[in-house]
């Protein structure tokens, strides 16, 4: 299988006034084409830092990252610009990277039609539901044609029910568009329900503690239907114990 992303010995040290903080230590893993991989770990272990480093928003201290193609990045909130209509919002990434061509515009319009936002393209973000806003944010990211999508606690700003539906929605869209995904989350069920593999990180300095291959042996698996599988709770228990959460 073709590797889309490969991390070799990634380390990150922060310089703060009260000393040096080692956030990540010797992180190694790769993500294959079409795969969904989740990263899970105790809060504050540096999961989000890892994504920032992969996307190039933050420098790494040591190691090597190999990426195939462009990277898309989805944040916790949809971050739609309230002063732009949906069409201008989904074009925002292209506008910034000065790639607003005829082809890209047609592509975005296709995406809007395919995912039921075309009729809303002249509306403003505050006129849309939470799920639709997330879809618009996703289309904004897809517009720049990413090979791999990084999701940083995406949807965590949504309420529980919406979140389950949105996760399902986004999962289908990504599969449909053949996009590889690397998901950072603190929600064990979300990680299991969405991914082919779950990477468990340790406490700070974060290292890869274990990698679980998730396989429900079912066709047309979606984040919602796989929750009914008996294997789901087994995976949950294993990862829960490994996370070693203390209140």
């Amino acid at each position, binding site marked *: 299988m073709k590797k889309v992303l490969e991390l070799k010995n990634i380390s990150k040290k922060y310089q703060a006034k009260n000393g040096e903080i080692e956030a990540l230590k010797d992180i190694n893993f790769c993500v294959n084409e079409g795969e969904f991989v989740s990263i899970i770990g105790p809060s504050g272990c540096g999961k989000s830092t890892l994504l920032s480093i992969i996307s190039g928003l933050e420098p790494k201290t040591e190691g090597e990252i190999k990426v195939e193609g462009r990277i*898309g990045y989805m*944040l916790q909130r949809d971050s739609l610009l309230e002063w732009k209509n949906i069409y201008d919002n989904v074009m*925002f990434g292209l506008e*910034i990277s000065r790639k607003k061509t005829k082809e890209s515009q047609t592509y975005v319009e296709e995406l809007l039609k395919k995912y039921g936002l075309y009729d809303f393209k002249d509306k403003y973000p505050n006129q849309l539901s939470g799920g639709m806003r997330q879809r618009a944010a996703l289309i904004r990211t897809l517009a720049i044609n990413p090979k791999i999508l990084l999701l940083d606690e995406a949807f965590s700003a949504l309420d529980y029910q919406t979140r389950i539906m949105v996760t399902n929605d986004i999962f289908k869209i990504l599969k449909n568009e053949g996009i590889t995904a690397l998901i950072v989350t603190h929600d064990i069920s979300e990680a299991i329900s969405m991914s082919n593999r779950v990477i468990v990180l340790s406490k700070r300095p974060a290292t890869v503690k274990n990698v679980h291959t998730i396989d429900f042996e079912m066709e047309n698996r979606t984040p919602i239907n796989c929750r009914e599988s008996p294997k789901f709770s087994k995976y949950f228990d294993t990862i829960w114990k490994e996370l070693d959460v203390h209140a």
Partner: protein
Amino acid sequence: MHEKNISEDRKKYLRKIRANKILVILTQLSILILFIVLWEVLANKKIIDSFITSQPSKIIDTFLNLSSNGLLKHLGVTLTETLIGFISGVILGVFIAILLWWSKFLAKVSEPFLVILNSLPKVALGPVIIVWVGAGMGAIITMGLAISLIVTILEILNGFLNTDKELIKMAQTFNATKFQILTKIVIPANISTFFNSLKVNIGLSLVGVITGEFLVSKAGLRIFNSIWRPSF
């Protein structure tokens, strides 16, 4: 939304909104009228001294004789001075705020100075300004500028610095440059801050100009005030 698709409920709702708007305006007008009538009546009854507070009918008289008494000219002068002070204050203020947003170093260095300048009674600078700029319109405009500039900088900069960090990060995920973040995120996100500061500033500029006119003036509303009123 098509006009023909409006339901009864929707119509009722829209009517209610419009009725509410009209009620607000009517109430505002009644308060204004009540105030003017009260003023006129109290002045007529000699309860308040119209020598000090004037009186609506006298003001109307003055306005009716605009061309002969020169109020128009003085009004024009004050208005011009205020507008020049106001516009230059806003432009300069926004420009400096952008500069300080751009460079954290500059912002840190200038912070204590801005705080001191802001608390400084600008009116006290009047004589210095006259010496430097000369006793004329320039000094008055400078006064208007001095009073509004620092507040503009502080207010706009504060708005800029409080721009939603997630929006900035979102732009960065598309590799936005700092200039793009400024023009596409920070400035549009602060349009309301900008208008709020305009509202405060037009008043401040007027205060500055009138103070300036107190100190040096050959024309303007303040001088008009003094001519028309025998000194105590």
